[in-house]
């Protein structure tokens, strides 16, 4: 069992309330870094000093936050109204177990008995504003146990079966785990500025201020990226496939990832004998979109771990892909010199 992934994915950190994850990561890295601090938004910065061979300022980012919900009102019957935080498909909500606030109060999102609903009702998407979280309490008890403004996360145990791991929030705790492993390794030729960022799911907001603060010469974003190698009649790209290695981004809705860095990563993969996929160019986005332009043009690239069923309580990744992503990120960084990003 990969304990790092288990701890990180089972911890709760919905956008804007990443406390638990932040404290956990701080504990995981404190002995392996030279300095750490937390900024006003909650980004966790760590500095791992290099060997002094290179004066590059390198930033590596992974976001701590996950999708979830926000308690907005407590109804007369004690049930909770909520808003979605981040890109949650309403189809995901019914029949799920959730945890509320710092005390992790358990609740469920129910659905009217099938016997009492009309067929037409069952054919349409149950919208979040028509659903409630039920903690089994009267209004009086609910008011005592739950605060309006509490964040709500799905409950999902981490589980492994052979090469496969399932659980919630691999997006982007898997990226956080890779970054923790990098920090725990030998020093790099340069100072490595690690950023565990907040509020990615609500618009890449943490990374933007973090990049401004770090002012890196080059940045690497570690993400978990949708793998769509699933049954579908039409012949479309899978975006990424599970088990085929980490993916490198070329273009998404926010960013043309730095072509020199893309080439560097592909070359590193080839040299090290590591599988690398090209993530299907198109929509979506990563913190690269914020970092690349926050403090003047910064060469930035993203490596994504293929993950099925992002933004649901139950994602799936390949542990082999994860191990390869750690190796690929590590080797790519160690081979990173000023020459790589030299403009002619």
């Amino acid at each position, binding site marked *: 069992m990969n304990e790092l992934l288990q701890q990180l994915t089972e911890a709760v950190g919905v956008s804007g309330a990443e406390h638990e994850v932040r404290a956990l990561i701080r504990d995981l890295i404190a002995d392996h870094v030279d300095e750490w601090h937390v900024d006003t938004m909650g980004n966790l910065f760590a500095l791992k000093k290099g060997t002094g061979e290179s004066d590059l300022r390198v930033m590596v980012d992974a976001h701590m936050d996950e999708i979830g919900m926000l308690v907005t009102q407590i109804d007369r*019957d004690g*049930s909770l109204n909520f808003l979605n935080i981040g890109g949650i*498909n309403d*189809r*995901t909500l*019914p*029949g*799920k*177990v959730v945890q509320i606030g710092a005390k992790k*109060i*358990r*609740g*469920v*999102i*129910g*659905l*009217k*008995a*099938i*016997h*009492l609903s009309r067929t037409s009702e*069952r*054919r*349409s*998407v*149950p919208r979040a504003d*028509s*659903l*409630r979280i*039920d*903690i*089994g*309490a009267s209004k009086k*008890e*609910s008011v005592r*146990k739950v605060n309006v403004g509490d964040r709500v996360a799905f409950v*999902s145990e981490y*589980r492994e*079966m*052979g*090469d*496969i791991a*399932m659980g919630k929030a691999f997006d982007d705790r898997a990226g956080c785990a890779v970054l923790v492993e990098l920090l725990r390794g030998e020093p790099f030729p340069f100072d490595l500025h690690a950023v565990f960022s907040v509020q990615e799911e609500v618009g890449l907001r943490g990374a933007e201020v973090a990049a401004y603060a770090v002012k890196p010469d080059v940045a690497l974003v570690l993400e978990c990226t*949708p793998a*769509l*190698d*699933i*049954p*579908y009649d039409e012949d*479309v790209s*899978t975006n990424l*496939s*599970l088990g085929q290695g980490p993916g490198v981004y070329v273009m998404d809705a926010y960013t043309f990832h730095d072509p020199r860095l893309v080439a560097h990563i592909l070359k590193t993969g080839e040299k090290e004998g590591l599988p690398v996929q090209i993530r299907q160019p198109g929509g979506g986005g990563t913190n690269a979109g914020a970092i690349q332009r926050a403090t003047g043009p910064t060469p930035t690239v993203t490596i994504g771990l293929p993950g*099925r*069923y992002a933004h*649901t*309580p*139950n994602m*799936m990744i*390949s542990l082999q892909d994860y191990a390869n992503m750690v190796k690929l990120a590590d080797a790519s960084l160690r081979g990173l010199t000023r020459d790589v990003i030299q403009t002619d």
Partner: protein
Amino acid sequence: MDLFKILKQLSETPSPSGFEGTISQTIQDLWAPYTDEIITDRLGSVIAVKKGNGPEPRPRILLAAHMDEIGLMVNQIVEKHGNGFLRITNLGGIDVRQLYAQRVLVHATGPQAPDSPLPGIISAVPSSWLPDSRQSNAYEMNDFFVDTGLSYENLQQQVTIGDYVTFDQELQSLMGSVAAGKSIDNRASVTAVTATLHELQNRLHHWDVVAVATVQEETRLLGAYTTAFSQKPDAALAIDVTFANAPGTSGGPLPLFDLGTCVPLGLGVNVHPGILNALQEAAKELELKTELDLHGRASGTDAYGIQVARAGVPTGLVGLPIRYMHTVVETIDTRDIGRAGRLMAQFITNLDETFLDKLADSMLADTA
């Protein structure tokens, strides 16, 4: 008796309609200490007899709670990019809107099936891939597949068409005595019958008590019809969950019940008014609050099958209010289980030699 613990064990046991072997074993172990004989019949129903203290031949009261749960079944194994996925169909009435992103267990029986069930995730293609005309529609059963992370080749070796799939859901403890999970329908009623049998240990009762955990209620009330035929009871109680008030829920003209407040008792065409009366009397003795749980055409419970076995069986219906019936987060106040258990024990204790005559008489006078 720790009812939450019993409910947790029963609720987490995977046994959908037609595949009750696992839950049957759990129930036999649970009931054996409280009963004199225990058997399973050819279709799998558990039949446990606790002998009464009256002179032979003793009348028999049947307590019927179904032990099956709703579930899924594999009906196709498909390949995409070398990966294997399972297409599924339902066992019992499932609102498909809750299926997306659920965790399940595939009870594989293929030639190289593993010893324990295969964990999987129910998913579907991203909704953005659906045609425009379906953008505001829920996913349909055909959209879903189960992903176990296995390659097509491995999956084919492990899983077979017709393998059943259950929801992987732990019973959750919510506030106070409220619990939520899968299969509260109808493992809560099995728990209540267990409480009744436990309670009867310290009591004298004239009648023989035949406790049955029936099979395939969710699909066709199969165990109710067949055990009521084979056991020839003189009277019967069906125990099943009923609808509680919940956010976004309305019973239309029917009143629903608040969790933790009452024992709903069935009134309608499947219920003998004399049995209802006797249940109400027993509740009064215990100072338990009851409410009427009304049905017009059919109760949708085992009572429907039992009532018409052989020459007919006077049947009553005891309810347990739950929220979100037929979802994986059915919600119950566990105190209601204990109350229903005690009520049935009191009702049984009150059964004497004259009860059947009184029932017959009651059919000639509308006392309600």
